[in-house]
């Protein structure tokens, strides 16, 4: 049982007190962080304050050095994400609709899903080589699963009454697919795509750390760490934090726009 929607305070009233404590803690944390960096307890080789990190970020971005690595990272993440998501949606629809497909493919996918994907890196290097392909493939495998599981679950938990309704109104298979089935799995697929984006960034950075031959933020950050350029490490981490946050926020906005009838249970 849940409260009727009218009982909730309007959005503005809920949000207004929200940002003030957040801003206060943010300033406090940043000041503490800067104070720790300036106190001289920690060698600047190992630690950088927010001011030094911001200065490093500006220097690295304006110098174009980090931007090159950033473009490499985003490129392989985007390619892998597209390929993996498309495959995940198709496989999810198939396994959601067909019990036979579910019975046969399910155990393989569960086993592959339980295996840490980054461990596949060696096999992918043997089969694909040391180029971009390894990174794209690893991202694709990681992006596949959230889309697959969510789409399949969306298909299976659809309302059977709507299927009967479509049949009663003599809908063609195409109409049923586009107007009955897809709208019902879209919210779950969008949730899956948010998870997939997060996983993709994680995996692409790991892949770049392990196979650094083409650069990328992962390569940049691990070599900065090896050379004890702490400010550069913090700057690159901040860039990835901004990227991940922007993508997550953008996707949840897009989800709200595309599926206005669906209210996500969280946030």
């Amino acid at each position, binding site marked *: *049982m*849940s*409260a009727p929607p009218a009982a909730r305070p309007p959005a503005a009233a809920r949000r207004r*007190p929200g940002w003030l*404590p*957040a801003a*206060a*803690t*943010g300033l406090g944390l940043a000041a503490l962080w800067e104070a720790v960096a300036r106190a001289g307890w920690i060698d600047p*080789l*190992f630690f950088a304050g927010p001011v030094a990190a911001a200065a490093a970020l500006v220097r690295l971005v304006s110098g174009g050095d980090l931007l090159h690595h950033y473009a490499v990272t985003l490129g392989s993440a985007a390619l892998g994400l597209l390929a993996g998501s498309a495959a995940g949606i198709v496989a999810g629809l198939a396994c959601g609709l067909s*019990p*036979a497909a579910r*019975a*046969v493919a*399910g*155990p393989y996918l*569960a*086993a*592959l*899903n*339980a*295996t*840490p994907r*980054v*461990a*596949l*890196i*060696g*096999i992918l*290097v*043997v089969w694909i080589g040391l180029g971009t392909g390894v990174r794209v493939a690893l991202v694709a495998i990681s992006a596949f699963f959230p889309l697959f599981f969510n789409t399949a679950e969306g298909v299976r938990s659809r309302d059977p009454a709507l299927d009967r309704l479509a049949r009663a109104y003599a809908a063609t298979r195409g109409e049923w697919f586009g107007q009955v089935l897809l709208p019902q799995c879209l919210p779950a697929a969008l949730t899956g795509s948010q998870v997939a984006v*997060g996983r993709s*960034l*994680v995996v*692409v*950075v*790991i892949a770049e*750390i392990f196979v650094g031959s083409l650069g990328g*933020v*992962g390569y940049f*950050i*691990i070599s*900065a*760490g*090896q050379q*004890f350029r*702490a400010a550069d*490490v913090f700057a*690159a*981490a901040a860039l*990835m*934090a901004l990227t*991940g*946050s922007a*993508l*997550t926020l953008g996707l949840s906005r897009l989800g709200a726009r595309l599926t206005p009838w669906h209210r996500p*249970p*969280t*946030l």
Partner: protein
Amino acid sequence: MTAGRGRAAFVLSLALLLGGWELYVRASGISPFFLVPPSAVARRLGQWLASGRLVLDLGASLLLVVLGFGLAALLAIPAGLALGVGRRLEQALGPYLLVAYATPAPVFLPLLLMWFGFTYATRVLIVALFAVLPVLLNVWWGVRALDAAWLRVARAYCATPAEVLAHVVLPGSVGPVLASLRVGGGLALIGLFVAETYGAGAGLGYQVIVATKRMELTGMLAGLVMLGGLGLALEQGLALAERRLAPWRSA
């Protein structure tokens, strides 16, 4: 299709897959650099088992997962509960945790390596690093999604905050906590593989890494089979715990 026929179909497909793979490798004479037959992988696993290597590696990996994942759970569960219950705390820290969660965890790897070197502590922290925020956020959201009516009932009966915590929030959080551990478990295994890259001398991930450095496919596949088995066991174990301890949730 019944469950029995489904299982039969799966077993048949597995037999066809393994048999076809074995036959293809033998008939085509493909270089073992590119593809090795499943029998070679099985033989390698048998050798590891006979030499005691397998038990050693499994034990090392299990210990690392237990320590790292345990540390993550120890930090994340109380923090997630506090954020789920405390409105003020949520407003003050929530946005930063969301940003930290959206940041790919491996970017913090160089900091751990710089600060703690190639030590065991670093490896434990790497496993914890990958799991801590997903567990925290899932506990936080799970607790917040608890039925608000329960809390209103408790408050209407003048329950103290401690009573609300003991009788409403903690029992209600069992489900979300276990679900969040399932999410975190998979990430902890990614952390395990990454951690065993840095100075480990034993472990399932370590075996895969050694085989990768030698470009030796048999060792990679044998290690992967074991890692996958460990992952499945972890996932099934946590799913079982969820069904036992929170049977009202459909796991």
